[in-house]
């Protein structure tokens, strides 16, 4: 019988639709490819990197860009390219951990606060205003200075500065979806409040959250590099883009330009890529763009 035919046809049609919409935004798609490449390089760093990133070579100190060392070497003769590849592990994982934690806390509390409304909502939003009124970077500096700058604390500091943004975002979305008819429907069938909030309503708030989180990945990475640059982030022996930029910056006057240029470029390209992907996702998930094929 031919009854099953439509079912088998819908899948390829759906996939090609997604593909067409991705192709409408080649810049974001390119950025996504860049991020995937960076992540792969970080995961397979021991295979990809040509040298041991921490192995000093006194004979090869301050070597400029060459075939042997495509990004030159530092004052100890360590290969810059290998260090940049290994540094991606730290940078990406800290940025990811910080963002994930901030998203989780922001989404859970934002959802509860937004659904509850009333004075709870008021108090929470004034707290958020207070935190947001404080410069985020200064706050992150203060937290790492107070807690000590271990990798965990850096992630924690960055995530704390980001929580208010997610909280406000999800709270706003919750105010919208809690008035939807499916919220009423969930109430009329006897769901307890926590099920209504987390199972029925929160999934409907996710698209803007995904966009915000992607954009914030870039910002988290930048904050972390900046903290490391001023010595309040990751500590020097560890290969990290901010640390390397700081070390390289000290050599500008003596002409070793490759030492700060390449880590700086790594930061810039990665942050830019996350921002472009975030922008692309925003268009991709925008319901108003759904009809356009």
């Amino acid at each position: 019988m031919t009854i099953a035919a439509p079912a088998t046809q819908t899948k390829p049609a759906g996939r090609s639709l997604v593909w067409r919409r991705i192709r409408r935004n080649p810049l974001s798609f390119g950025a996504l490819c860049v991020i995937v490449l960076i992540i792969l390089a970080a995961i397979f760093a021991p295979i990809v990197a040509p040298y041991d990133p921490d192995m000093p070579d006194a004979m090869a100190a301050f070597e400029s860009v060459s075939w042997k060392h495509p990004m030159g070497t530092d004052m100890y003769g360590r290969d810059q390219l290998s260090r940049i590849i290994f540094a991606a592990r730290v940078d990406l994982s800290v940025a990811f951990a910080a963002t994930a934690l901030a998203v989780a806390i922001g989404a859970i509390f934002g959802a509860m606060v937004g659904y509850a409304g009333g004075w709870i909502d008021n108090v929470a939003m004034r707290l958020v205003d207070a935190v947001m009124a404080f410069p985020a970077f200064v706050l992150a500096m203060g937290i790492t200075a107070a807690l000590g700058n271990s990798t965990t604390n850096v992630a924690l500091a960055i995530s704390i500065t980001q929580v208010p943004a997610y909280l406000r975002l999800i709270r706003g979305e919750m105010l919208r979806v809690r008035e939807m008819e499916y919220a009423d429907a969930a109430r009329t069938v006897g769901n307890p409040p926590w099920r209504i909030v987390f199972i029925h309503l929160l999934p409907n708030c996710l698209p803007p959250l995904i966009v915000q989180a992607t954009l914030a990945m870039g910002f988290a990475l930048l904050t972390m590099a900046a903290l490391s640059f001023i010595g309040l982030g990751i500590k020097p022996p560890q290969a990290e883009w901010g640390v390397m930029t700081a070390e390289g910056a000290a050599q500008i006057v003596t002409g070793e330009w490759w030492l700060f240029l390449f880590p700086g470029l790594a930061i810039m390209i990665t942050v830019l890529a996350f921002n472009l992907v975030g922008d692309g996702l925003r268009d991709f998930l925008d319901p108003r763009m759904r009809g356009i094929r």
Partner: protein
Amino acid sequence: MTNLLDVADLTVHFQSDAGAIEAVDHINFSIRRGEVVGLVGESGSGKSVTSFAILRLIRRPGEIKSGSVRFDGVDLATLSEEQMRRIRGAKIAMISQSPRTALNPVIPVGKQISRLFRLHEGLSARVAEKRMLDMLDLVRIPDPRRRAGQYAHQLSGGMCQRIMIAMALATSPRLLIADEPTTGLDVSIAARILDLLRELGAKTGAAIMLITHDLGVVAEICDRVVVMHAGQVVEAAPVRSIFHAPAHPYTRALVGSIPRVDRDVAMTPIPGSVPSLLNPPPGCRYVSRCDHATDQCRVARPPLESRGQDHDVACYYDIGRQTGGVAA
């Protein structure tokens, strides 16, 4: 045997900056077991508010001011929120007027039904899924297995309403509140949905409270009709009496405003609109639209009184007596 539902003296107010809006004002009506009752009235007559009040789901600024709702002999106002949750969905289910928006857009429709079994009957995922497929079969959704995995936006309006009915009947409720279940559906689909409701109601023994402004729908499936106007019950009677011997001027006007193709009678619209419910005057709320209004109507609200077998009317003017009786 007691009635399934007794609404007594129920009053719901909505607080606004200008004062209290009396959306539902001291209403009384009952629903017997297995009965199909139509709750009829224009927009703004308090029909939907009544249904939410029964489920105790009136949210601020709304508030139940007085009255009681007895369901199966139990006063719902005395139950804890936890006990009330076990009534909602399990004993009293509701079908909303816009099926597509009442279904959660990000959860497959089948899952929305099977979750009810898990929530109210504690069934395992596998058994719940089987019961869900049975329900989809019952509401005659073709190819249930495929449809169950789809989302609301992939289904037609009629299909969504069938899903809603499946959801509502899933846990065999004793009372099904259907809030304008056929608005937004085209006529042929609407008729089929009504047939399905009536049939499944009879099969499961559930009483149906059908909220509608469409007397055609009422004539089709109801046993009894409760007519509401401006937050008050003005008449309650078996469906035959409503059409053949309407006693309240508003009911007469409603019946007279049905377009007829079988008779050469002009359809008469009801003059005016539902009066403002913000600090309404003390008398009958239909007074400004009524041909028979007297001074008495302006001063005191007519009580809901029996006019014969199972027929209650809230009006001082007795149409039956004035016109020498209309054959029932």
